[in-house]
């Protein structure tokens, strides 16, 4: 009965989401991952409305930036502006390497910014370091 970390993965690309899951599996990373595919779904999940009524608050949010309609930047802003949600660490996991995006994310209080590498082996390494850091070393605030 291991108390697994609860991760909310906000990622619009099914291929990218599946890839993360496959790498987690291969690297034997045991976390409980829920995936939502756009910003509106992410906020519904966090506010536990509609189909997400029975969800609990995630420990960590992995957030993609570029999504249709409400994108990751808006989601980040909303989360960090909400008293009940702002203490949840948000790791930006995105393809964008633009300096503007990086600056904006940190300004909006993202915990850190990870640019997805092109190469799969590099990607594996990054996932492993996320595991070592965010899933082992780091402590989380009590859930609200």
């Amino acid at each position, binding site marked *: 009965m291991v108390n697994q970390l609860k991760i909310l993965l906000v990622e619009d690309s099914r*291929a990218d989401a599946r890839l993360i899951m496959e790498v987690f599996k291969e690297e034997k990373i045991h976390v409980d991952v829920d995936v939502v595919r756009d910003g509106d779904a992410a906020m519904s999940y966090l506010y536990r409305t509609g189909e997400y009524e029975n969800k609990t608050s995630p420990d960590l949010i992995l957030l993609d930036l570029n999504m249709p309609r409400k994108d990751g930047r808006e989601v980040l802003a909303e989360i960090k502006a909400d008293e009940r949600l702002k203490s949840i660490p948000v790791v930006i996991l995105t393809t964008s390497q633009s300096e503007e995006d990086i600056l904006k994310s940190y300004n909006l209080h993202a915990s850190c910014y990870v640019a997805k590498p*092109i190469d799969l082996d590099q990607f594996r390494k990054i996932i492993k370091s996320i595991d070592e850091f965010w899933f082992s070393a780091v402590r989380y605030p009590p859930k609200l």
Partner: protein
Amino acid sequence: MRPDHNFDKHALALDEVRLRQIIDAAPNGMLMVDRHGVIVLANTQVERLFQYDRSELLGTSIEELVPHAAREKHPAYRDHFFREPQARSMGAGRDLFGLRKDGSQVPVEIGLNPLVSGGETFVLASVVDITERRRSEERIRLVVEAAPSGMIMVDENGSIVLVNSQIERLFGYDREELLGQSIDMLVPASVRTKHPQERASFFADPRSRAMGIGRDLFGQCKDGTQIPVEIGLNPLMTEGERFVLASIVNITERKRSEALLQEKLLELERSNEDLQQFAYVCSHDLQEPLRVISNYNQLLASRYNGRVLDEAAGEFIEFTVDATKRMQELINDLLMYSRVQTKAQDFASVDCSTIVDMAIANLKLAIGESNATVICEPLPTVKGDSTQLLQLFQNLISNAIKFRSKKPPEVHISAESIGNSWNISVRDNGQGFDMKYANRIFIIFQRLHNKEMYPGSGIGLAVCKKIVERHGGRIWVESAPQRGTLFQFTLPKLD
């Protein structure tokens, strides 16, 4: 009290002597003439001016000194003066001349003063040789006429005293229509009322300066049109009178080019924005599907290699993965190439020596691995974009190392001053290449080697060329197989 008669005579004699002395010493020519026109007195200056001895003049008619053309009218002028004797200058508005003994004429100015002596009225004329003044007036006139811009001379009252043919052309008037008129006739009606005030303030503090700084000035032409002008004002003092000499330039053409330049700049900005958007789409939306292809191919290879997929299948997958990697690199390189323009910074002062040090630091790994030496002579400070100049030097040094010969690579960087730019050389002892390819290597994506041996998309030199050209310089190369390569490029001096 009646003066003592004897004393009077003595005093008068003394006065006369003194009077004669004064008259003789006068710097102007002085002639005293009676009502019949007979010269009764002539001073030394008159002798000098007219080349006569006074003995030749005394007792002769004044008309002897008047040029033949004017001689007929002269007695009438004399009579007129004696009828209303008043101190005044003679011949206002006319050019006066005196006739010398040798027949030559001298331009003169004549002042007339009535004098009563011994109950008789005489006229005392002061005669000034104005040859020099006319000469300098003539010089001014010639200079004004020859000036490439419109020149107009105006007196303190605003009357036009001199114009040149450029003014005639500019405003469409003949000079006769302008001379003597008020300068305000060339000033547009909307600002005409203010103009006298401006003239007054100029004469209050007469300095050479441009008129109406910060304002758009216009001139009013004969046909009613207005032309945009630039006006320079210069105070001029001549013969105790004050004038302003104005130079007037029609700046219609200049305004048109300025407007065109603004338009072009706007177009360039717009096109730059378009390019930026295009580059962003390029990088983002093109990369995304490529990444999926690449990642999943790799996943396939790692997950199923040896089990479901045979060796051939593994090789096939490798080809696709390599191809997608190359495509990603190409897209990144294209982005970098477009950024030379879209991420261009304003030029500032850049120390090339510092830039080369940074490039060497960035290439530490490659330099170490290849046992390379980079020798850098003192380099100048130039006007440029530091980020792009770093790219430039780094690309060239990196190329020199990459395309090395069997010897450890040596890169030699130096600079030479040529005119108003710097000529910078980057020389290596590498493989070199046949000069018939010299132009191709600067073209985007053109490579002289196959990709397995020398990785890289072949954009480095194209970027170098674009950067140099953005800085207003040229780049060229000299090389020979096995003899190394010399790249040279020019950069603007810091002014």
